[in-house]
């Protein structure tokens, strides 16, 4: 019989409990056990970022992280970014700037974009387009529409600075 480990963690703000085999990845758990299919399996080796989710205060490739390590932590997926209230400002900016083409990479790209902006706590330093591109270097869009992605993130930075 396959060994399973019971884990408990916060998922998009709600405490959840599940059983996972010790070798299952976080991405598979989110998709199979919780039906959260925003994060995608694309490369499966950490090159593309389509599976990006946030664990506590850090984004990671959920296709590489073991699900058991979610135990006791705070997990946020794209589904928990805006939630029932509607789209979060970063999601809306991607829509407004036409940054989305086929959309496959978008849940990961937007999670990472939100992280990059939130990580910059030094308000005297406004992230440049180069900083944004650097922050998104682990996210690949095979439609290759990066310009509008950077436009969207830059707009959010401007908006939030003036707020």
């Amino acid at each position, binding site marked *: 019989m*396959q*060994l399973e*480990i019971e884990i408990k963690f916060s998922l998009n703000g709600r405490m959840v409990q599940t059983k996972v*085999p*010790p*070798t299952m*990845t976080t991405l598979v758990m989110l998709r199979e056990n919780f039906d959260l299919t925003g994060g995608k399996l694309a490369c*499966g*080796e*950490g*090159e593309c*970022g389509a599976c*990006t989710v946030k664990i506590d205060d*850090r*984004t*990671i*490739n959920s*296709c*590489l*992280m*073991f699900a*058991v*390590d979610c135990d006791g932590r705070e997990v946020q997926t794209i589904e928990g970014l805006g939630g029932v209230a509607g789209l979060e400002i970063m999601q809306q900016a991607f829509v407004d700037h036409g940054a989305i083409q086929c959309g496959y990479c978008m849940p990961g790209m937007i999670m*990472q974009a939100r*992280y*990059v902006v939130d990580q910059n706590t030094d308000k005297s330093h406004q992230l440049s387009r180069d900083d944004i591109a*650097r*922050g998104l*270097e*682990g*996210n690949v869009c095979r439609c290759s529409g990066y310009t509008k992605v950077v436009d969207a993130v830059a707009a959010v930075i401007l908006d939030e600075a003036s707020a």
Partner: protein
Amino acid sequence: MINIENYHRPSSISEAVQLLQQGEATIVAGGTDLTPQIEAGARQFESTLINIQRVEEMRGISVTSGRYRIGGLTTVTDILESTTLAADIPVLVEAADHFASPQIRNAATLAGNLCNASPAGDMCIPLLLLDAQVELVSWIDESVSTRRLALCDFFIGPGKTVLQKNELLTAVEFKQPVAGFSASFQKSGPRPALEISTVAMGFAGVLEAGVLRGVRIAIGAVAPTPLRATATELVLEGRSLNESAIAQAVEAVQEEVKPIDDVRASAWYRTHLSGVYIRRALALFQGVTAHAA
């Protein structure tokens, strides 16, 4: 597919090494190297997994009387964001900044990068410049046993180290570099992010009364292990930095590297790049030390 029969989550080094002593096991931490290797079939899980992510004493960066200690579970992001390292050992932070992507840096651990023993492992390069030691812990005769080993003696081949099956790499340590120590890190690849280095070069030394002292050269992806280019170091040691010394260093380094042809680059190109990089490293060193003088 191996059936996992035992799964352990130790919370201390002592508990982890006692588990390791009980037989073959796969150690699991960040997963950034392990998962792709398993998926590609390059590695298989043992039937016992030991997940060490909860061993808190293996995390963090500390300094005690001029000796730096970086816990094995410290992530590459922790190194990148360390204000202590940025002030004292910037070359480590620079290498961390060139490491993979933000998401990988957030998960990848220092011990994982070292134990994976890729000839192109980026964190190996600055640590070789610093004459770092690895701390290897095991459980022998009912107690915790620790040995320390120079990092340059740790690697023995691609993916191979002297780490025994009952040992855990718990920390990396190095001494505060001498006054005037200046180090650089260069890395080549077709794109800056997520690139497995075509060649990575670290250079360090001190300029003392116009001559080079304490020269350290470490090169990645040009040999079966991350390489300390000791022959080239000797060519430069005690020399003043003039064109003849530089030309001899280029020649020596191109002789000393033993690269292979692979999908990322040819042996010829890696040899060529090694020469270019030693020249650039010496120019950088000259610039920095001239500025400091």
